[in-house]
């Protein structure tokens, strides 16, 4: 008899550890033959702690379970999947989960994250086995043909990046995983690192074989202590069982992997800053060119990919490019890991083919606002993403469709705000955040963000508002066109979208 209590950080934040302890105590006092497995999260966070019980019919879910409800669950016979007010039925049949297309997240929340046996029993390392039968060029062709684009936010075709690194001659190349998931409203990387770390390790190993890199680093943000620990343990297991190191996974090839910790700098999610940080320096932007693919970590050709991009590689190489490409719309192929966050009733992870509209995501999956108040705005794509009003909610989640509305899909974070939000305050925060996190390398970002806060303060105080809105517009133009990277270059998105779509919060005057 197996019970599953998530060890995902979000589940822990609402008491999963205490629930696991209470369940173990009940098992002991009732002298039952049952074991508690700590799985990752299914990503239905409003139901956490979500406890699952393995039954003949499949896994039955109960949630949100509290310490106080544990005894009554045992009394009701939940070990046999019996009825209880907290019973949600078969987990796989919960509509939120059933209506998803989980490819990258196929195992997350199902297996024990640190059980290599669990991982392998559910198609783990199949992609790598296939990769070993292919030439490096063929692996890269599969990735290119799948249409996979960088899930960190920029959406650059992964295969093309890899091809550049493969074609760059060097004595040493690197695979670097960008796990500096700093965007507010995002947690997909964290969930994979905590819930299915071996899929990331497998993806990085395949990447290493494809481009001829023998060494990899995962740069994990320090705000994710649980993910960091899980990765450290998973990597140790990988070495112990022969999946990393010399002759990785019996390939005859070498692949070393290490996880490093960031230090609370949002800018280190930008790939060149990240590389500087990994080298032990201030996380300042490097001008491009040279591209990291040519001169990256320690000056060597380097693949820098987001967690989700790399964790999607195994299923592509396992099931083929055509299988993956079949999902999605337009030039956005495959699935997007949408993260429903903020003021939303049913927040969580929704992996779905590109093309779902924002409205479907927020209402069909999310169930509207958490407070029950009227929806007013949504910010998609993190702190550099645009604020959209209700009238833009029918925009499909697709890189190009969002770009056409002057927004960005980014890393797929969807932060909902109810009618109490003040968009002038949000615009101010966008500039403030840029000022706090600017690396200081380029003037438009370093100075522009501080001037931006001051200008918005004057608009809020209703001083020369028409003139100051013009100044704000000009300032945003300079930041957009003149910044070295996306921090300064995209901060105008939330600012300008707030001004454009929520004029009334700026004393009724359009910029």
């Amino acid at each position, binding site marked *: 008899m197996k019970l599953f209590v998530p060890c995902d*950080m*979000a589940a*822990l*934040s*609402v008491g999963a550890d205490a629930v696991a302890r209470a369940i173990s105590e009940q098992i002991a006092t009732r002298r039952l033959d049952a074991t508690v497995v700590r799985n990752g999260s299914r990503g239905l*966070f*409003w139901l*956490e702690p979500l406890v699952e019980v393995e039954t003949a019919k499949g896994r039955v879910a109960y949630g949100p379970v509290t310490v106080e409800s544990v005894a009554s669950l045992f009394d009701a016979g939940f070990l046999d999947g019996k009825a209880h007010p907290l019973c949600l039925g078969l987990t796989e049949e919960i509509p939120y989960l059933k209506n998803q297309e989980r490819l990258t997240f196929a195992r997350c929340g199902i297996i024990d994250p640190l059980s290599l046996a669990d991982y392998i029993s559910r198609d783990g390392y199949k992609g790598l086995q296939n990769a070993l039968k292919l030439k490096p060029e063929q692996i890269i062709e599969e990735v290119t043909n799948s249409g996979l684009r960088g899930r960190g936010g920029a959406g650059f075709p992964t295969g093309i990046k890899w091809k550049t690194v493969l074609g760059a001659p060097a004595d040493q190349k690197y695979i670097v995983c960008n796990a500096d*998931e*700093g*965007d*507010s*409203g*995002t*947690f997909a*990387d*964290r969930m994979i690192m905590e819930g299915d770390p071996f899929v990331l390790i497998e993806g990085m190993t395949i990447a290493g074989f494809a481009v001829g890199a023998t060494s990899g680093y995962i740069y994990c943000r*320090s*705000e*994710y*202590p649980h993910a960091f620990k899980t990765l450290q343990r998973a990597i140790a297991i990988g070495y112990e069982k022969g999946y990393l190191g010399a002759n990785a996974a019996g390939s005859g090839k070498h692949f070393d992997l290490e996880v*490093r*910790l*960031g*230090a*609370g*700098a*949002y800018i280190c999610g930008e790939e060149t800053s990240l590389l500087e*940080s*990994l*080298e*032990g*320096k*201030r*996380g*300042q932007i490097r001008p491009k060119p040279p591209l990291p693919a040519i001169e990256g970590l*320690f000056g060597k050709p380097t693949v820098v990919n987001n967690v989700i991009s790399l964790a999607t590689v195994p299923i592509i190489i396992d099931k083929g490019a055509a299988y993956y490409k079949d999902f999605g719309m337009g030039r956005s192929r495959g699935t997007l890991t949408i*993260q*429903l*966050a*903020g*003021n*939303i009733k049913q*927040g*969580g992870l929704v992996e779905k083919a590109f093309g779902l509209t924002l409205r479907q995501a927020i209402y069909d999956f999310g169930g509207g606002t*958490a407070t029950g108040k009227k929806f007013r705005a949504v*910010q998609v794509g993190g*702190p550099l993403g645009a604020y959209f009003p209700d009238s833009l909610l029918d925009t499909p989640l697709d890189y190009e469709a969002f770009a056409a509305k002057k927004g960005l899909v980014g890393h797929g*974070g969807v*932060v*909902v*705000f*109810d009618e109490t*939000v003040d968009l002038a305050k*949000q615009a101010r*925060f966008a500039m403030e*955040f840029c000022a*706090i*996190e600017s*690396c200081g390398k380029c003037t438009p970002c370093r100075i522009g963000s501080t001037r931006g806060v001051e200008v918005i303060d004057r608009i809020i105080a209703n001083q020369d508002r028409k003139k100051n809105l013009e100044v704000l517009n000009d300032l945003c133009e300079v930041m957009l066109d003149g910044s070295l990277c996306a921090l300064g270059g995209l901060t105008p998105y939330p600012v300008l979208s707030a001004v454009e779509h929520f004029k009334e919060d700026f004393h009724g005057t359009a910029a």
Partner: protein
Amino acid sequence: MQAWDNERAVSLVEQRKNMPGALLPILHALQEEFGYVDPSVVPAIADALNLSKADVHGTISFYHDFRHHPPGRHVLKMCRAESCQSMGCDAVIGHVEKKLGAKLGETTADGTFTLDAVYCLGNCSLSPAVLLDGKPYGRVSAQVADFLIDDARRRA
């Protein structure tokens, strides 16, 4: 948490100095051991890594994580990014600042609490989110914050 010990600090530096890109791992190790990175260790790090003292100081001061002074006995990191804003984190932070008599980035006069701002803990479906001594908490209202703080105080 250990009190600052120069000999121990230097040995932590020495153990890591040959890692590629050793500086961040060294700073993290020091902070994990002592709760902060004492400026007195800068010359030893510079020497071990063949960097200038300015390079080392510049790196320490670039990152929000590294402290120059010992923190309070409890460290409360409160998220003030957009997702938490949408669920009222500003009011909760204001409440906590008032209760503790310390602002974000400060330590209480009695040395019990250090209050830090963070920008996203990846718990955005359960906003507002905080980390108290490394432990995550979600849906943190003013009442929940009171409970967490009072409970931590009882544990000293």
